[in-house]
């Protein structure tokens, strides 16, 4: 399973990862190697098998709760962790030209 540099670049773009030339080359080889191993799943007969996405308490089922407002952390404690803020909101670099 080959995964070429162009595909690596395309996936990196989707993942919001800036990769160096060297990383593109290394990941191209390493991901190809891992995907080759993963190819073995294509040989498994999964006809009429329901996908399992939740391995939790089968008896209880997928749990849902009421959507009720709860107290949250104080704003200043949360903003204190932000790289940049103005006391009311997170600040980010320019989005529009």
């Amino acid at each position, binding site marked *: 399973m080959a*995964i070429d540099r162009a595909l690596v670049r395309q996936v990196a773009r989707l993942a919001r990862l800036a990769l160096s030339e060297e990383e593109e080359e290394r990941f191209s080889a390493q991901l190809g190697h891992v995907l080759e191993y993963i190819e073995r799943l294509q040989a498994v007969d999964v006809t009429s098998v*329901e996908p399992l996405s939740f391995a939790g*308490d089968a008896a209880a089922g997928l*749990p849902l709760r009421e959507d009720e407002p709860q107290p949250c*952390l104080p704003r200043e*404690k949360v903003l204190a962790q932000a790289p940049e803020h103005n006391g009311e909101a997170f600040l*980010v670099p320019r989005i529009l030209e």
Partner: protein
Amino acid sequence: MKTDLLPLSRVSEALASGAVSADALLEASLARIRSQDGQLHAFLRLTENEAWAAAKASVQRRASGKALGPLDGVPIALKDIFCMEGVETTCGSRILRGYVPPYDATVTRKLKQAGAVIVGKTNMDEFAMGSSTENSAFGPTLNPWDRTRSPGGSSGGSAAAVAARLVSGALGTDTGGSIRQPAAMVGCVGMKPTYGRVSRFGVVAFASSLDQVGPFAQDVKGVAHLLAAIAGHDPSDQTSSKRPVPDYAAALDQGVRGLRIGVPPESFGEGLAPEVEKAVRAGIEKLRAQGCQVREVPLPNSPHAIATYYIVATAEASSNLARYDGVRYGHRAKASQLLEMYERTRAEGFGAEVKRRIMLGTYALSTGYYDAYYLRAQKVRALIRRDFDQAFASVDAVVSPTSPTTAFKLGEKTDDPLAMYLSDVYTVPVNLAGLPGISVPCGFDSGGLPIGLQLIGKPFDEETLLRLARAAEPSEHRLPPMVEG
């Protein structure tokens, strides 16, 4: 033997009888960390001020006859994946360096409420992605039995800290074996409870359908004490179960006579080191000698587990790690545009293995590949679960090696991601099926490295697993050579 070198349950007894005090235990723990951890690097940082306050409060409670239970005054370490209010939590990553959580994880809060003395935060593979602790952005942890070797991972810091007696117990997380594999590599007991048994609130997320919190200790009873303290429903984690938490330590007294254990032939095939097989088979004979019935049970789909896992876990990770964007917390790269800020923040903040897994997961979920990879992996996952369901129709637990080899050399697998992934071949199926598993020491190889035996149980049947682990565990706890008696 010094009290602080004893297994956790014996430390509890010594505290209860007044043979030792919480402040003396903390003093001994900190002294041992100062003298040994320069060579091990089990800890990323200590929480000495918090620990002294907790130890003094524990001493006072005991003096007034109000001790809280078996963990009151016991020195415990937390993997650096657990939020602790006011204490930096990095998850082994540069991207979270300097992050000081404004709240406690539920398990952190529960340990504090049980009177445990939290001594510090332990090293780990970045975002728990790894099997050797070499993916930590802050340098690897070394194995106390042989410092040229890895302690396993991703919870290698917690495992090494317990094995070297720096603390009596520790918490880790296990997404594909990250508690059980390092426990095996360093010769202590490590348990991954059933998916949903322990809250993950305040635990940095890796793969949310697989992640589970669990304990390390030298002894099975110590693990039972820790599990009892952290298990139970939490309204802040909707996947946590409302089932009542049994008295795990009391279950240990029931013995194992009549329990049926299954041996899957798939776990004793190619790739298993002969010395590991010999020790695990001896462990199975030890259980038989105590009255267990042993039979073969097939797990025909377990050989597909690693391939399945590296789709499911990376897909979930690529989604979970999207939150590290330089906006709300952690590292932010300098950039004049938003998109550039995201891409450079993540490029600078994440290490190579985390980038590889984000790439793999993004690829598996992307248009045109979803059905072939993610959906197919979810179906194979269902087959792996079905194998266990069928096995548990005729046995009470399944037994296998924890890892195919003993501790490997530092650097041995770092250039070959797939070889590293395969060291979790026996532990990964358990996470995919959501089951409880425990690794218990069952001997040493000819090089003096510990070997672990894995027991796998029915959902929410941690009691049976702990009973079996107790019957399998060694009666004497050998100390690593670097720990002076």
